[in-house]
């Protein structure tokens, strides 16, 4: 398992660096081109290249979500031989109540699967397809943003 710092960096690379700042803007650009607001011969190729990267990025996203789920598990937060570590157990239960990590993980997984299906279904770059991709990419970005490890025990 990665450290929390490494996980944060990986999330930033995927969500902030790739999904929000590259993929979503490439979709916006394609939409502008298709609507005629922008004249550009290369803009759609930029999007096609990013879509070709998707299988690799999809795997990154799966790893991110999987690691988050691992961090939020009881076994990660309460050491197995510390049955007397009552405080750690209480802290874990309270975090589950307040942050509901399993719900966030479920939503992120659904959003990822949804975008994956949409990318595979979009055979051509039409305005309707691109608008659906924008909606689903933004939904995934929001879901990944909501995953947080800030309140975990510092030893992690």
């Amino acid at each position, binding site marked *: 398992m990665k450290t929390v710092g490494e996980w944060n960096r990986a999330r930033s690379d995927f969500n902030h660096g790739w999904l929000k700042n590259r993929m*979503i803007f490439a979709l916006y650009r394609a939409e502008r081109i298709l609507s005629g607001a922008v004249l*550009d011969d290369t803009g759609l190729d930029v999007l096609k290249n990013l879509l070709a990267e998707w299988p690799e990025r999809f795997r990154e996203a799966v790893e991110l979500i999987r690691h988050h789920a691992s961090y939020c598990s009881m076994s990660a937060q309460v050491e197995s031989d510390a049955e007397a570590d009552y405080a750690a157990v209480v802290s874990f239960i309270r975090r589950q109540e307040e942050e509901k990590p399993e719900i966030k993980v479920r939503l992120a997984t659904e959003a990822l699967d949804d975008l994956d299906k949409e990318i595979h279904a979009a055979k051509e770059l039409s305005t309707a397809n691109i608008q659906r991709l924008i909606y689903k990419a*933004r939904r995934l970005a929001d879901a990944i943003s909501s995953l947080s490890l800030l309140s975990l025990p510092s030893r992690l």
Partner: protein
Amino acid sequence: MTPRILIHDDLFGRCSLDGSNVDRENLCAHFLWVDATGDTSAKASKQKVIQPTAEAVFCRAQSPASSGPGDTVENDLDMALEAVRKGWPKADQPQRGRPPKSSPVRWSMLLIDLCFYTGKVTAASHRRTPGMPEGRPGDDDPRSYFGLTLLDAIHQEFPELPVFILSSKPRDQVSLEFSQRGALGFIDRSALDGPELLEQALWNHGLLADPSGEVVGQSLPILLALREARRAAGHRENILIRGERGTGKELVARYLHRAISDSGFTPPDLNQKSGIKNQESRASRPLVAVNSAAFSPNLFATELFGIQPRTSSGVDGKVGLIEMAKGGDLFLDEIADMPPEVQASIMRVLQERQITRVGSRENLPVDVRFLSATNAELESPDSTFRPELLDRLRTGGTIWLPPLRERMDDIPLLVEKITHDAEAQRPGIRPRQVTPEAMERLQTHDWPGNVRELRGVIFDAVTRHPDVEYLVAGHLRLPKKGIRKLDSEIKPQEAQNGSTPNSLLDVLRHCSFSPSEAGQWAGQLPQIQQEHSRLMARLLGAAIEATKRRTPDRPDGAVQIHPAAKLATGNPALTAAKAADLFKRLLSPIQEELEGDLADAYRISLRLRPKGIPARIKVTVR
């Protein structure tokens, strides 16, 4: 004119080693910006935005600006500040022998990213995003964002520069920090409605010149005043416009009135926010302008509230000014001259939001916004203006217009516009350029009469020299040294009140009538004539306003010089020809500075009496 914005951003501001930045092209397409950075990426781009909302200049705020594997990227505060300075001229005061230049295009707004990644550009980080470093601990920590450090430094050096955060990071992590550091707001960069939000921000907070060109200027004081006017256009509260004579108060009132229906910068959803249904209804909102000095204590009620028609007695109805402005704006100019009876009536309208026509008992609700203007110190103990009325006339705020001496770097733009106007009014005369010496003279004069005085000087120069290609310093008739000293001796109160009997008397007091100084006397005569004409023009203007023929088609009223002359002279037997002669003679010394109704009246008088000015007309004012 398209707004010009500066963006500090590591990702979109960088240039990769091959000179391209695909991310920046994506961003520009989404926000409908033209990339005006001028670096290799901007030059290489073939993207064309059909209707750009802004010209965007990008700055990485990091060194090196262009990076590849092996380079180390560090944040660079000096580079960021220097980029801001390039579009932010300091206030340039005229100095001897060095007139201020015309101001370059000023940043309308600055956008700052939050997270700037630093460190080494590795093969892996470069493969992922060309030119981007792998990042260091703390780069992505909201407590130590470099964007907030930038914001601090920029707000300290450029407190008037509107700054927004443009980031795809969560807003709630920095909402207190960016407010404390002077940013005006936060726009989620990757939001679907980001472009609309930015347009709205530019409209409300940006420094934008008047796209119609009617209010001329790029200087900070005039851009700040226009911003206040645009902000006021978004609501229906009453606005007071203040400034010295000749600063363009009516022009700004008209800008404010039409601001909401201007295409170009108006955000698409502004209709909904202002409560106005659609473009057509906004464009058709009336603006009725009236000079408050024109109200007579006996007749103002019929002018303001109208007359109820009565078929039984044969009384014709008349629509009052307030009803004409229904749903729109009523512009009251020179409110300091409003008679006390009128003040009381306007006060009642503002309190009750309804009017009663003369001859009727029915109350009619009115939805009118009052725009008022004055150059007087209404709060002074000597003022006869009712303080409670003043408060009600500025419930939506006050717009202060700067005097010309505080925006001297606008003079080249103003001179160009005025020269063009003067040439356009005189068909067949030669178009001309203004020499640097002439411009220097214009930029080192202190202009107590502001833009109106500048307009008069340029029109005079063009009229007297129709057959030249250059406007040179010798063509300009500016007050001589003694006269200029006189201007500074006039008490501020009098200087703000425009042409008054006192200003004419002041000119006369400082004239030498000694036969031994005949040359000086001859030099001062034109100014005495002009001062006299300005004073009479106030009387004629009031008379025109009081006798205008108003119809629903012409809510602002048509100028009628014959009844106006009869009213001004108190002579009901005055003939139409004599009336035209009166206007022609009294207004000819200041024909170049006439605007609005007085300019119309002067043109009518010339049409009716095209031959030379009569030798003498006896004018008696009762």
